[in-house]
């Protein structure tokens, strides 16, 4: 999964609430529709926040990748 291609990487490690979601929602607009953003986070809450955000914002989580206490989300911009 870590080899999944992406257009932009966002470092969302150790951010205060609610910056991970704020930054991903802004970051996704910086790639073209159909583009993929890789977001790396350390927040346990992000594991529910990101899917909930993707659902309400109409974007798609292609997959996740866990390594060394960090989780990477691969999110495709759908609109």
């Amino acid at each position: 999964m870590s080899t999944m291609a992406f257009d932009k990487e966002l470092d969302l490690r150790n951010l205060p609430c609610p910056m991970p979601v704020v930054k991903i929602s802004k970051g996704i607009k910086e790639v073209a529709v159909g583009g993929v953003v890789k977001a790396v986070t350390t927040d346990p809450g992000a594991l529910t926040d990101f899917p909930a955000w993707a659902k309400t914002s109409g974007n798609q989580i292609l997959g996740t990748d866990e390594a060394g206490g960090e989780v990477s989300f691969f999110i495709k911009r759908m609109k």
Partner: protein
Amino acid sequence: MEAQLKNDLVNVFKSKLSSQMLLNLDTCSRCGLCTEACHAYASIPLVKYAPAYRAEVVRRIYKRSFTAQGKFAPVMGEAKEITDAALMELKEAAFSCTGCRRCMVYCPFGIDTQQIMSIAKLLLVAAQAEPETLSMLADMSVSKGENIDAFKEGFLSGIKRLEDQMIQTWRDEAGEDPIPTDVVGADLLYVALAGAHSIIPSARIFNAAGEKWSLSFFEAVNFGAFVGDPTKTKLILDRIVNEAKRLRVKEVCICECGTAVRVAKQLKGAPFKVVSLTEVHARYIRQGRIRLKKLPGSYTYHDPCQIARNGGVYDEPRYILSHLVNDFREMSPDPKYNWCCGGGGGLVAMGDETLDFRMQSAKVKADQVRGSGADVVVTACENCHTQLSDLNKHYGLGKEVRFLSSLVADALLPEPQEARG
């Protein structure tokens, strides 16, 4: 603006006119005493940041639609129709107000500017002109509540990873289940934020105190309250209420988040008590359930507005700090008058969008922090922590900004063997 929308907005306004709101709108004598109470005005002396002026922005629309004076002699009170320009003014007024209610302490009548701003926020929501970021966050929180079963697994895997970290770092005290979730019959439900920094120190302290606790699946912060949408505020709070009822807990403990504490403490008739994390930590110390060592350095404490002035938690943080440090310095001679950090009301949650304004409007806060002479600024609110950290960087204050809970966790002494039972 279309006539239909204007009509809808007048009806939305009407829905906010409770007896208390009418008093807030009808009593102001525009004496101007509140101007110096607002950190934004004190830092940027533009009259648009004076609380009474912000309130007038809403009041003008109120007068035009709902008062005899505004209908028959609009010029007297500068009564105004709702227009697109008025919406822009409402937005600036509402989202440059942090809802700290310091002006309410100055006002001879006790007019609640934050309540008046809640009308502005609701009108913006109804006109779909509210800050996008805040409504996005509120929608996310609501969706999480509606689909918790779908998201639970991800959350649990995240918690499992934190537990592994805890067991590695604090092998002795972590126990077998350092971060319990979904514990039916727990005494205390802890509602944290998304970040590990809001979970690990608290978990250590709960475990050290021998608390029978359970971590909530939901984040404490209520983005519905920030955006000013009462329906979403309730939906977001209900997620926690329902979880607490299902687990039959006696207490719901809200993490270091001012808005979350404020919103939850306003719950009436719930079968559980709502407490802030700071109150719980003070109780543990008082009951001898945790012991702390003294930390070196000089410390000051920033009272989060929603927890202190609007929540009454003044003594507990000072009690905790008296067990934590030898050199404590008050920031404000009377904590009721503490300056707001300048980050509340959703301003910090809007991130970089509001950074410039947050830094400029909180100059008085930066001066106050500098004036305290302490090395470490302690607080008990996520928003305040973020804002104080930003101020620290922007004004080169050279302080360390810490959460009170993380200091408590750092100072934990191992329990005496006999107490461990």
